[in-house]
């Protein structure tokens, strides 16, 4: 179990705006977005394609500088290395070093977290077993299927046993078994008292695993709260989401 910092949210975003310069005028990818993620919860970050989810994650991970606003991870500014020591990140695409073997990838990742020796070797073996890649551990990742690549990237995101795991549309392109793996991963993290930030537009997945959600539409935060409270008893998350996205689109067209 994790001992959480008493009052510090796992993620805190306040007044976040991101504008990209463009020839046809500036593109406002995020507009004054604010929300917090409590430690130990599974938080769904929803939105249609192009809503700004990945932009927000890129700000959270320090890949992008916001035009305005602040973001903290585990109580630390996103630029601080100490925040990333306790962070795991799984991207949408299983982009990794195809010339390495699965074991080498995990070992090198562990070294970046200053793990070494027997402790690292043990952790790598355990992770390979957890994601079902023990038999393929010494094969180059280039020879892995897409599902296997997603699993090795999943193991890579867990090498440091992170307190906060950020998943950016991890189920895209996965078969039902792959989706099941991701759900199992999220359940395991929750059971261990860790925080999971799960970005997706696959509502059935989110409904199954998330305690709370924030819905982003056209760069604005359209709704936020507990899944059960937002949806109510007679509506599915999918219906709620479609209504919200349509209303936001209509509002924009009217305005």
């Amino acid at each position, binding site marked *: 179990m994790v001992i959480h910092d008493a009052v510090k949210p796992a993620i805190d975003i306040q007044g976040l705006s991101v504008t*990209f310069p463009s020839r046809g005028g500036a*593109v406002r*990818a995020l507009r004054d977005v604010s929300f917090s993620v409590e430690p130990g919860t599974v938080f769904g970050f929803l939105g249609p*394609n*192009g809503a*700004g989810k*990945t*932009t927000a994650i*890129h700000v959270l*991970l*320090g*890949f*992008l*500088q916001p035009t305005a606003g602040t973001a903290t991870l585990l109580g630390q500014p996103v630029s601080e*290395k*100490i925040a*990333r*020591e306790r*962070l795991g*990140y*799984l*991207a*949408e*695409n299983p*982009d*990794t*070093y195809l*010339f*390495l073997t699965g074991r*080498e990838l995990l070992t*090198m*990742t562990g*070294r*970046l*977290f*200053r793990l*070494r020796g027997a402790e690292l070797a043990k952790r790598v073996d355990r992770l390979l077993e957890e994601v079902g890649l023990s038999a393929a551990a010494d094969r*180059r990742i280039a020879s892995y299927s897409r599902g296997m690549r997603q699993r090795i*990237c999943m193991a*890579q*995101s867990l090498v*440091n046993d992170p307190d906060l795991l*950020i998943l950016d549309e991890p189920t895209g392109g996965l078969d039902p078994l792959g989706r099941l793996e991701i759900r199992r991963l999220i359940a395991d993290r929750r059971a261990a008292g860790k925080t999971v930030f799960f970005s997706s537009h696959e509502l059935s997945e989110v409904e199954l695993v998330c305690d709370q959600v924030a819905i982003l539409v056209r760069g604005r935060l359209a709704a936020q709260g507990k899944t059960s409270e937002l949806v109510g008893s007679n509506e599915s998350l999918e219906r709620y989401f479609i209504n919200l996205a349509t209303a936001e689109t209509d509002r924009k067209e009217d305005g």
Partner: protein
Amino acid sequence: MTALWTLAKIVWLEMLRKKEIYVLFILLAALLLALISLDVYGLGQVTGYVKEIGLLGAWVLGWILAVNTSVRQLPQEERRGTVFPLLAKPVSRLELVLGKWLGSWTIVCGATFCFYAATWGVTLLRGGTFAPAVVVQAALLHAAALGVVAALGIALSTRMNPDAAAATAYVVTGASFLLVPRVPALLVTSKGLSGALLLVVYNLLPHFELFDERRRLVHDWGPAHGGAISGALLYGALLTAVFLLLAWIGYRKKKFSRGDIL
């Protein structure tokens, strides 16, 4: 330092496993065969030619390898999307720049020293000499020159695509090799604006001639003064640091283009 060596190791493994470096070893084998069979004007025992050709091969191929390896390290991370999971770890952009440089520099040095070893071997085989102290000095200076070239390649790649960065690196380093040593002689006859321009070029471009100990090896001269070698190594380290600083300035706020940003 652990992060730097881990990043460097990724560069080495990629170079070795993608088999690109083996092209160099095929060239080395061809060069060795040529050197062994070389018999200029029937002077089979004149090993100066062997050293001259072998060391020229080491310089040219080390140069090509240093440029080609360094310019693609950072853009490649971005293109294949591996920069995102990498920078989500406790790795700063400065460490990424330094790790990529370290990996490029060390693997290029390793390949270049294979050329030195081959040239040394063939020279000994043909009854020639190769003073170990001079070889060590020459190799150290050559390594310093390769460090400068690799740092320049990395710096250019933060501002340009890999092809443009490679072309620019070849022009800058090629001009430095060929033009800079001739500038003092040209300055004697150049006056006015052309003289001033030559002086600017002379001071701006790296002085790779300071790192070139081939003549000393070819003509079996003794080792150079330690102070001169230290000065040249310091100059190389300073130039490398300047280029790496420029690389970091270009990379620290870079927006990555791969993946769905919006």
